């Protein structure tokens, strides 16, 4: 279990996260939502040790995260950041194989094993990138690159997936595909995922739990039904919203009501 207890992160005077607690249990998918600047990304980054909390602690299976070395953390916790820097040409397959780094026998020198390649090819198939595997990363479209970044994260076979706005560049069908893949890892491989997203309806559709943040504070945690209420969302986002029941999934459906709405 990956657990954050009472995390506070301060950048100088500014408090980015104030006393947040979070638990990622096997098989569960948690959505982290809130307006821009709510501290979502900061909280996500404390969970793999990239940012040290000013107060509070992060534990992996009950042991403090900082006591693990980076390679062990790399095998257990995988992060999908928004986009990779690509100043050197690498093929999609080479890029995705980067996810096997932490599994190499040595921390430095080493070559991918047959199994590493098999895992990478399987993930490429899952993310519908097989045909692009020999293409260079910088020849891909934004959405294809984003899928490759996810593929690399899945190739690590980590049991904790931390995704920072993974659907930002994706079209509708690939948004669903991506979160479906993550959901699938949770259901079938006992993985757990934390997804930072601005898409409340995708969060409602895929997540077991929702953590709602504003200005570093945790406003509410719980099942989507209990968090996605019109009053609460209106308070946090400062926008009138309509919450009703999704006709297919039965979960909550959020529709923003714009001030300058065009009525017909």
């Amino acid at each position, binding site marked *: 279990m990956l657990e954050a207890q009472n995390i506070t992160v301060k950048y100088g005077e500014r408090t980015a996260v104030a006393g947040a607690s979070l638990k990622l249990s096997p098989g569960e998918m948690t959505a982290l939502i809130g307006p821009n600047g709510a501290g979502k990304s900061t909280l996500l980054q404390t969970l793999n040790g990239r940012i040290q909390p000013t107060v509070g602690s992060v534990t992996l299976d009950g042991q403090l995260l900082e006591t693990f070395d980076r390679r062990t953390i790399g095998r257990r916790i995988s992060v999908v950041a928004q986009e990779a820097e690509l100043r050197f040409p690498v093929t999609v397959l080479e890029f995705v194989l980067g996810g096997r780094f932490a599994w190499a026998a040595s921390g430095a020198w080493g*070559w991918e094993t047959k199994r590493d390649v098999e895992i990478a090819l399987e993930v490429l198939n899952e993310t519908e990138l097989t045909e692009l595997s020999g293409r260079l990363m910088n020849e891909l479209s934004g959405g294809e690159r984003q899928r490759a970044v996810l593929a690399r994260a899945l190739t690590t076979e980590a049991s904790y997936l931390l995704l920072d706005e993974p659907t930002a560049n994706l079209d509708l069908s690939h948004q669903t595909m991506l979160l479906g893949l993550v959901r699938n890892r949770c259901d079938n491989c006992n993985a757990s995922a934390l997804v930072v997203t601005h898409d409340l309806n995708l969060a409602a559709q895929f997540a077991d739990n929702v953590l709602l943040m504003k200005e570093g504070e945790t406003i509410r945690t719980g099942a989507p039904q209990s968090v996605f209420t019109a009053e609460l969302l209106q308070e946090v986002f400062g926008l009138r919203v309509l919450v009703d029941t999704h006709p297919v999934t039965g979960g909550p459906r959020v529709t923003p009501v714009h001030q300058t709405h065009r009525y017909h």
Partner: protein
Amino acid sequence: MNINSTRFDGIPAINGASRDRVTLRKTVISCIVLSCALLLTVVLMSLVGSERLPLRPALCALFSFGNAQCGLTTDQFDILFEIRLPRILLAAAVGGSLATAGAGYQALLRNPLAEPYLLGISNGAAVGTMMALVFFGANEWSRPLLAFAGALVATLAVYRLARGRAGATPERLILAGVIVTTFLSSVIVFVTTLMDATRIRSFTFWLLGDLSGSSKSLLPLAIAIAVSGTAVLTWNARSLNLLMLGERDAFDLGVEVSRVRITVFLVASLLVGSSVAASGSVGYVGLVVPHLARLSLGSDNRISIPAASLGGALFVIIADSAARTLIAPRELPVGALTALIGAPLFIYLLRRI
């Protein structure tokens, strides 16, 4: 050669012919081929020069490793073993060191334009060497030591200057390099004015990169540093592959980023320091050679770093042989020749931004 015209992240992405995944087998074969080419070049170039040596006896003496004179006169034998061969081996060490350091800086700084000479790191090493000449003139070992210190200080200065609020962009890094280079150049000018007139000419040559005044006593050290530096950077090549795609991602995937960064800074500074102490600032080797290695073999550092090292040795041996034979018996500084080849390549890469 096929340079992708897609604009991406402000930096030209060079698409090599090879898109196959790099394997250990491919790496070993490439390194064997390059090593054979290097050996052949060493033999060929030791036969070329202003003094003509008879072919057969010279080859015989070379392959006996200097144990048999094979009918060469004592003068010819001395030219071969006391002058030409040490100079060629030093050229190999300098080229290998600079190309490896360039490949290391490029991967670590995620910048295809990074190069020891352009970033002012060679100048840092040059200032160190001059300090050693001025203050510890008699002690030969003080030169590589202070050159290393100078290179390290310049590396850290460029690295700090290049990190803006938005992180280190490629353009900012080059600008930081320009600032460090010009600052250190003026330090060099100050120290030069303190020298007497006869030393200034040889010193100016040395600054441009010159192997003619090389001392034999530093040769074993230069070779040892070139070989071990290449080995250490190759050993870290898989981490560098991930670092090339972003420090944050590399950290997330399990790379000990700060350890690798310190290793590369130290090793690259050592490589630049030892080659500058031996031959001055030979420019653009660290730019031209790693680019050729990546173009032909792909950008996986596990192959491109050792290939750049061997290729750098080849490149500087050939450039230096040209420098000492083109207008024989007079000589050109080898740095002038490498810059003649490197500067147009740099402009070409820059135009793609």
